[in-house]
């Protein structure tokens, strides 16, 4: 019984943590590029990153299976290097979680970076700072609240991920049975007691996320 609760909880938090870490690194970078650079096809790129936010989870799952499956471009590459497939592993669940939560991070962080006064960046350039130094020293610290909010949202989204995960990682007990998936299978098996406990735990995690976001949002703002 306890394994039926503890393992899903552990694997869910593990997948969400790894996914959020990846989302943080790549999402902030993408958000900075979108906010501060102009290039051809930028609108298309923005659309592409945002798409998972509105696509049905099954569609995302299906597309990801095509991409990372045995015959997919990425799947083949990994198979050739590691000699093993990605589908139906926790890593596949991370890919699913990452894909659906990235747009939340990019959107929130981009909005936060866009409102940082460009003159502050110019002031840093004039003081001899490179663009990278300026981003790390000035822009991102000033967009910190937006980035943290994006991180919490992405984490929450990753914790609750269901559709794409099911298609990509399946429901393998002791391997890929995350909370959401365990709730579904417990419900199907008529194990209401287990479902209730898992539901309560998930609600608790979600409430925690909302509280955390609210706390970040209400923290004192810098006066310019």
């Amino acid at each position: 019984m306890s394994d039926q609760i503890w393992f899903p909880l552990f694997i869910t938090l593990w997948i969400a943590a790894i996914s959020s870490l990846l989302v943080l690194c790549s999402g902030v970078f993408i958000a900075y590029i979108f906010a501060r650079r102009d290039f051809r096809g930028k609108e298309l790129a923005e659309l592409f990153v945002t798409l998972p936010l509105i696509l049905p989870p099954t569609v995302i799952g299906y597309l990801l299976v095509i991409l990372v499956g045995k015959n997919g471009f990425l799947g083949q590459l990994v198979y050739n290097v590691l000699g093993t497939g990605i589908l139906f592993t926790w890593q596949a669940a991370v890919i699913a979680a990452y894909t659906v939560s990235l747009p939340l991070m990019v959107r929130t962080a981009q909005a936060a970076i866009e409102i940082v006064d460009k003159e502050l960046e110019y002031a840093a350039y004039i003081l001899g700072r490179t663009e990278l130094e300026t981003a790390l020293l000035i822009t991102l610290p000033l967009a910190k609240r937006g980035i943290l909010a994006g991180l919490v949202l992405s984490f929450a989204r990753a914790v609750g991920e269901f559709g794409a995960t099911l298609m990509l990682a399946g429901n393998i007990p002791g391997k890929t049975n995350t909370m959401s998936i365990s709730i579904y299978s417990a419900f199907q098996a008529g194990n209401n007691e287990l479902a209730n406990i898992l539901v309560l735990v998930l609600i608790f995690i979600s409430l925690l996320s909302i509280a955390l976001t609210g706390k970040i949002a209400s923290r004192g703002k810098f006066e310019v």
Partner: protein
Amino acid sequence: MGVKVDIRKCYHEAESSGKRETRKAFLLDVSFEIENELVVLFGPSGSGKTTLFKCISGITEPDGGKITVDGKVYYNKDKKINLPIQKRNLGYVFQSYTLFPHMNVRKNIECGLKSWEKESREERVMEMLSLLHIEELETRYPSQLSGGQKQRVAMARALAPGPELLLLDEPFSALDKEIRTELTEKIKNLQNKIGIPVLFITHNLEEAFLLADRILVLHGGKVQQFGTPDEIFYHPENRHVAELIGLSNIFDDAWVEGYDEASRSAVLKSGDLRIRVNPLNFKPGDKVSWGIHPENMTLLLPGSGSEDKDENTYSAYVSSIINKGPKKKITLKLARHNKVLAAELPAQFVDTLKLSTGDLCLVKMEMSKVVAF
């Protein structure tokens, strides 16, 4: 060595006419050289002052020309040189100060000293703090500073890396008048102390004349005149400059009737009025404009000796007197000529004359005070 600027750049300015706001294109086309002096860039908003600063600092790229500072080429269109902002060694104080809000004063100043050794960096910060007399602000955050303090911190930060040129974009525009006057005097001293060229943007006339070694008058993207405050004040080269320096009695209907080599003066005929002026280099027959500052006129009571026959003295009727506190603005209609002049004289002086609307008086415009261009 100094600073040589010779650039062209198209820029856009928002223009509101009625409800609609349109963006109008202007061409900034300027060429000038400055030495170790304080040069005030003076002009109305939209004249291209900030665009010029952005070109010099490298924030925007000019469309063509050259910029050289201390012998170092910052920009040269023909040679395809456009030095990145970071490589240009200049200080820039923005209108909004642009202090980094999440760093205290010390960190703000240190930001420009990245390649300095730790010890010399600390020394430099202290040196800057004491140069601007703000030692006590070292650990404060920008949100804890007053406008004047922010301004000084921004100056300290801009000067810390030892720039070859200092650009100040309306540094006092957000400050109270008292602090303004105090800081204006400080900047003048500071420029003497640091001994680098300083370019200072303002559209405050008083500030321009108080500070400048030379004034560069900009209007519509073009240099209208570049000279010492006295040159600008007494010999404006065109109507734009004349209006910008507050000359309000301007008449465009004059021509040079005669030139007297001995007294180095010229007689202008403006309508049916004759007036003697100190010209720069006029030839008889030239079409010219003339004017006089409202403060530079003298009023006399009739019968006080200087009658109408005296040079540059005309009888006039007072058509209105407006009280402006320490000064009074008097509108005068010349009795024998079809001209209206506005004088602005100390209230005390006007009161002694006991003038009131409808009175006849004499207006005297000293030759040296009449401006012709």
